[in-house]
């Protein structure tokens, strides 16, 4: 007995009811004026019945599962010994956790304490009866609603309209999920950030030069908020992104220019997909490449010429990130360059310009807004990129512009603060959400500007 099984059973019943509905429609048609006399096709009637069965049942399952944990928790509270309650919230939570784990892993016997065993047994039985209750409730609903819907099949019932309006609602709801996702992101990040800013001053966060969240978790520490100055993270992010753009923009742009202007169709057909392969490689692979190949290489080269290079230098992360972004820049620029009308090139050739003069002085200036838009998108990519920097950039928040030193970034800190076992409400985890909020806002602004610029550009030549 599990939710998966219950859903499968529900779907099976739904299908059966679909078949019944169709048959009923045929039967009704026979006694009335034939199929022509029916408002809709038999399968519409079948679908009508199926919708009546499936939707409420699925709603019940989801609703039940949402509330079940809370209800069971409160029912279990009585069987948790008073001695535990007296020790405060935290130990109750721990106690519950232990019980939950034992029940989840089906191993109540592993609990040595008999009191705990009793609680666990009670929990298991509560869960069992809850499941049973859900099963019975859902099956009854499905069967009853199915019968009800079957009864309603008459020649002039507008089954098709009703089914189609359900379909259209589904389509509409699906389209709004994108909005819900955004709202979810904004709310979750904002909510936790507000809690963070109730503990740490916003001004200190945005202007502070010192970032060391590890020391700030000590409650007795005076002025612990001073450790959440995000400036070094932002400068680190910018430094690495800047290095990345120094690699990606020239290589990406020149590749795009060559492919769009000079390459024969054959060369283009081969090289373009190869370049796009760079974009298809998962970022974790670039991270491995940066951490295990490029960073040691740069360190070796550095020591060979007498420079001291950190083993997690910003340069290594930036270079590899730049390589990753090359195809991004090149395919966006390629689109933009090929959108420049041929007539403009003709005009330039007609005046006696060489190909490169035409490109540099006519095509690129004409494509510039689009190229800038593409570069902004690439910058937003670089700022939000996580795995390369998690693997190849440092953890220490150094305020430096030296690419040979180690810096840390916003995304690295988010990952560091949230992986590992700390409770969710600590200032540390909340800080990760505040950083997430900053990241979201910055990339959003960049994207909005970039998409606007690119769209304006396209409209110009349409």
């Amino acid at each position: 007995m599990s939710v998966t099984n219950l859903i499968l059973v529900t779907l099976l019943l739904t299908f059966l009811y679909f078949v019944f509905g169709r048959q009923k429609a045929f039967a009704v048609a026979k006694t009335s004026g034939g199929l022509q006399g029916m408002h809709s096709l038999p399968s519409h009637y079948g679908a009508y019945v199926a919708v009546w069965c499936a939707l409420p049942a699925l709603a019940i399952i989801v609703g039940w599962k949402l509330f079940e944990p809370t209800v069971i928790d409160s029912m279990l509270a009585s069987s948790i010994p008073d001695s535990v309650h007296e020790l405060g919230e935290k130990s109750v939570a721990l106690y519950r956790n232990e019980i939950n784990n034992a029940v989840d892993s089906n191993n109540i016997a592993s609990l040595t304490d008999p009191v705990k065993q009793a609680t666990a047994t009670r929990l298991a039985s509560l869960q069992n009866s809850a499941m049973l209750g859900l099963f019975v409730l859902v099956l009854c609903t499905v069967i009853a609603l199915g019968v009800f819907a079957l009864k309603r099949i008459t020649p002039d019932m507008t089954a098709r309209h009703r089914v189609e309006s359900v379909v259209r609602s589904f389509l509409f709801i699906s389209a709004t999920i994108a909005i819900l996702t955004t709202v979810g992101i904004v709310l979750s990040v904002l909510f936790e950030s507000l809690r963070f800013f109730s503990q740490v001053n916003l001004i200190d966060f945005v202007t502070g030069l010192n970032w060391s969240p590890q020391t700030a978790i000590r409650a007795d520490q005076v002025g612990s908020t001073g450790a959440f100055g995000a400036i070094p993270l932002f400068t680190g992010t910018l430094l690495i992104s800047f290095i990345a753009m120094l690699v990606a923009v020239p290589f990406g742009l020149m590749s795009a220019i060559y492919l769009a202007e000079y390459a024969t169709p054959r060369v283009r057909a081969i090289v373009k997909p190869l370049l796009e392969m760079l974009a298809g490689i998962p970022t974790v692979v670039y991270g491995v490449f940066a951490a295990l190949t490029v960073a040691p290489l740069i360190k070796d080269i550095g020591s060979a010429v007498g420079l001291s290079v950190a083993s997690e230098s910003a340069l290594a992360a930036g270079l590899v990130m730049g390589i990753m972004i090359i195809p991004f820049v090149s395919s966006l620029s390629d689109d933009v360059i090929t959108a420049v009308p041929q007539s403009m090139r003709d005009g330039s050739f007609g005046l006696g310009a060489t190909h490169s003069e035409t490109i540099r002085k006519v095509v690129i200036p004409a494509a510039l807004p689009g190229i800038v838009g593409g570069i902004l998108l690439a910058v937003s990519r670089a700022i939000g990129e996580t795995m390369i920097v998690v693997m190849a950039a440092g953890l220490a928040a150094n305020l430096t512009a030296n690419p040979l030193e180690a810096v840390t970034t916003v995304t690295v800190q988010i990952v560091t603060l949230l992986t590992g076992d700390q409770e969710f409400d600590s200032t540390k985890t909340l800080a990760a959400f505040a950083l997430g909020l900053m990241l979201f806002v910055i990339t959003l602004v960049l994207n909005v500007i970039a998409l606007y610029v690119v769209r304006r550009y396209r409209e110009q030549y349409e």
Partner: protein
Amino acid sequence: MSNNTTEKVRASLQKRYFKEKVFRSIGVVAIVASLSFLVVLLGSIIYKGYPAFKASYIQLDVTLTEETLDVSADAEDSELRRANYLGAIRTALRERFPEVTKRGDKRNLYRLISSGAEYALSDFMMEDRSRFGQTHSLWLLADDEADALLKRNKDLTKPIRTGENAKNKDALITRLNTDQLGWLQSFKEAGETDVRLASTFFTNGDSREAEQAGIRAALIGSAYTLLITFVLSFPIAVAAAIYLEEFAPQNKFTDIVEVNINNLAAVPSIVFGLLGLAVFINYLQLPRSAPVVGGIVLSLMTLPTIIISSRAALKAVPPSIREAARGLGASPVQVVTHHVLPLAMPGILTGTIIGLAQALGETAPLLMIGMVAFIVDIPNSVTDPATVLPVQVFLWADAPERAFTERTSGAILVLLAFLVVMNLTAVLLRKKFERRW
């Protein structure tokens, strides 16, 4: 006056053609450089990763008796399974090298064989109880340091690279000492070493011991996660695309949805991880580290990709088909389900596969929802703790042992192989059903 122009143009020509050549060459250099990045990246991974698919074995005569195993011949199955196989292996090693007597030396000798060998030996015993009481010549998995040397067929008689001869390019880089190298050489000379295809790499979960670590758990975890991603994102994305392309009225709300989808496509993936952590783990109390949560997060992330390509596919279906169907009296929903959708399906599937390939390679958001755990057991359902292939890569890349580097690259190769297959499928699908209206 016209002569004037001709003169001046002629004077400038050489310089201008030189510039033309330079500019063109810069383009060629940019492309060659970008492509060589690709080659270096893939080359270094393949070079480092292919040994992961090989494993070294050492042949030993292991005696399985009451004496070596500490159990009697008529012991229960469960007792026999937990017998002292490690002892049996150690006895076999001591017998192979009777000259090793000192305690420290013995310990070094034992280190040549993987600590996982005892489980293999236990399985061997349990397969057939009649093996008890006999001596068997068995191939046992070598430990990672020995494995590294054997796999690459290094000359074991060379000196070890240490402080004094740090510059000696010829020397062996290994954590084994000269004694251990000598024993290994002795095995090798006797033909008692062998390098085979490493099936354990595909059949084991993660392990602290590099030579026993495999990608099975991660593969299954990826499969579950991707399944959830597909089940959620495909219908929702297609429905959203149909709504926007076929039904949406021209109004503010539709505009907002469209802008939203475009922006969502560019939100950093880690932000989706934060969403997953805050909403699904902390608020809805779904299990941590579970493929179901990973799948939900990844499907939210891939939705925009699939919606955008599905819309393009729907848009490519010519209006004449819709008009024809409507002319026959089909309702708008019927027009879409019977005519437009089937025609757009290849394009939609292509977009979906590309979106799923992205999801398969995604790491950062999964770190947020705790799929970074050390997972030895193969997950059995979408709610079991699991990890995925890219996260496994991340974990192994972080491990200090050198032998994990090759596992890292090996896992990357497997990941890339899946991505190549998915993308090729998408390309072929597009080629096969490409239609010019």
